[in-house]
């Protein structure tokens, strides 16, 4: 979504035009667990079709924010809305690709069952023909049509990644969230996957949030970066702004300024 008008804000970072259609709103979100503040007043929004990268070092609060958006982490304060409604009310508008290490690889199931489970919201005892065709069409979009009837246990890392992406896309969501999707994948596989994702995001006007601690790997693909550090959003802007020397200094400056 390069054509979007942009509004520059403090810190020299370019943020999306607030008049654009909002897919996800994160507004003043605070998460405290056992008295520790894991997220501190995080606010940003994702406009339609934008490919956002949620970055930050380990322990910055990325996973906590991700869980809060997914609705599996309670907020202490703040508001999170998907298409103007609480996430619990618009579940099908949200696709989720989990970290690969959490996949139960020895589960006796085929790719089509996994994809149909996302479609139905429960595990299929039997897959109907219409569901099968939907799963096949979605797998085709991610270049994995041949995987339809493959057992999950036999998939390579890259294949499993495509199947789980298809699983996230099958409900035709407005937003897809990916948690470190390229962890443990080689450089070539990572580049291919990011290219595929960026292409789908563009062609379908699908908003995406990719969570990673590796900002350099994603910089070419992302349209916007939300940068967290110690539970605070220290930058929200264009990749070039964050990767340049000035951007890094601004992060550092803003971060320390906030702490004073």
């Amino acid at each position: 979504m390069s054509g979007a008008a942009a509004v520059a804000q403090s810190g020299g970072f370019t943020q999306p035009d607030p008049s654009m259609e909002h897919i996800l709103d994160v507004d003043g979100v605070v998460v405290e667990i056992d008295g520790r503040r894991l997220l501190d007043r995080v606010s940003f929004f994702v406009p339609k079709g934008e490919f956002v990268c949620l970055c930050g070092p380990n322990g910055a609060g990325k996973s906590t924010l991700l869980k809060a958006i997914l609705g599996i982490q309670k907020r202490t304060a703040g508001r999170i809305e998907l298409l103007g409604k609480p996430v619990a009310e618009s579940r099908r508008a949200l696709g989720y690709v989990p970290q690969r290490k959490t996949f139960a690889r020895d589960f006796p199931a085929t790719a089509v069952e996994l994809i149909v489970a996302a479609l139905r919201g429960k595990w299929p005892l039997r897959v109907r023909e219409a569901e099968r065709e939907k799963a096949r069409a979605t797998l085709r979009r991610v270049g994995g049509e041949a995987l339809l009837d493959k057992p999950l246990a036999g998939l390579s890392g890259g294949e499993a990644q495509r199947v789980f992406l298809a699983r996230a896309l099958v409900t035709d969501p407005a937003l897809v969230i990916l948690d470190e999707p390229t962890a443990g994948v080689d450089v070539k596989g990572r580049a291919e996957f990011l290219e595929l994702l960026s292409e789908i995001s563009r062609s379908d006007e699908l908003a995406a949030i990719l969570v990673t601690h590796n900002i350099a790997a994603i910089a070419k693909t992302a349209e916007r970066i939300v940068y967290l550090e110690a539970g605070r959003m220290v930058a929200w802007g264009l990749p070039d702004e964050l990767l340049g020397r000035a951007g890094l200094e601004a992060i550092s400056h803003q971060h320390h300024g906030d702490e004073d």
Partner: protein
Amino acid sequence: MLTWLTEPLAIGFMQRALAAGVVVAGLCAVIGVFIVQRGLSFLGDGLAHASFGGIALGLLLGVSVDHATWVALPFTVAIALGIGWVLRRGKLGGDVATGVFFAVSFALGVLLLGMRPTTAPPVNIESILFGSILAISPSNLIVVGVVAAATAIALFGVWSRLAYATFDPELAALSGVRVRALEYGLLAGTAVVIVVSVKTVGVVLVSSFIVIPAATARMLGRTLFGVAMWAVAIGMGAAAVGLVLSYHLNVPSGATIILTLGALFALALAIRQRR
């Protein structure tokens, strides 16, 4: 050949043994699919030993071995929910949680048996530990049947959600599945199945009814439902074959059934190696 099969079944206690054995085996097998898939194989053993504590408590309270089941039932369900609670806290592994509960409740059982007054009627500990499938009474059989029917209906009702939660609790929760309630339900259901099965196969051997059919079926089925069907068929088949074999060989029935299960497991392993 046919008379070899039908001859033992002309006898009343053998008919009841076959009915109880086959139903208990099928019941344990289908529950076992979820237990094994969740990496909780040790749980069956733990809950069986916990049920021993419950039976001993019943005996101390002065009820008969048969009626002690009704004391063991809430006792074992409570232990199962306790293990579930510890599991959810996530600080201890399932094996550790089960190991602790298992040892403590078994020791409690031994202690309670020792506290019975010397005037109390003697108890056949061996039949509690190793089962007494040939001594199944018609009323035992009714209890087994009712529990089996209730479990089958409940499992059918939650199958799709339980399967999803077993595949990945996080993804299932995101789809709106109530994962925690299902987990506790599965643990409580397993406890009930184990308590009613203990009479048939005994405290020591019941977990093999849960683990072996499911472990064997996982090598044969491609989908979870397929695995469940294989597990039930393997469990029931082994129960019938083992029982008839034990009659002709004049050896203990429970042990013969489990050795039959073990042979089927080895066979499936060999088939998988050759594929």
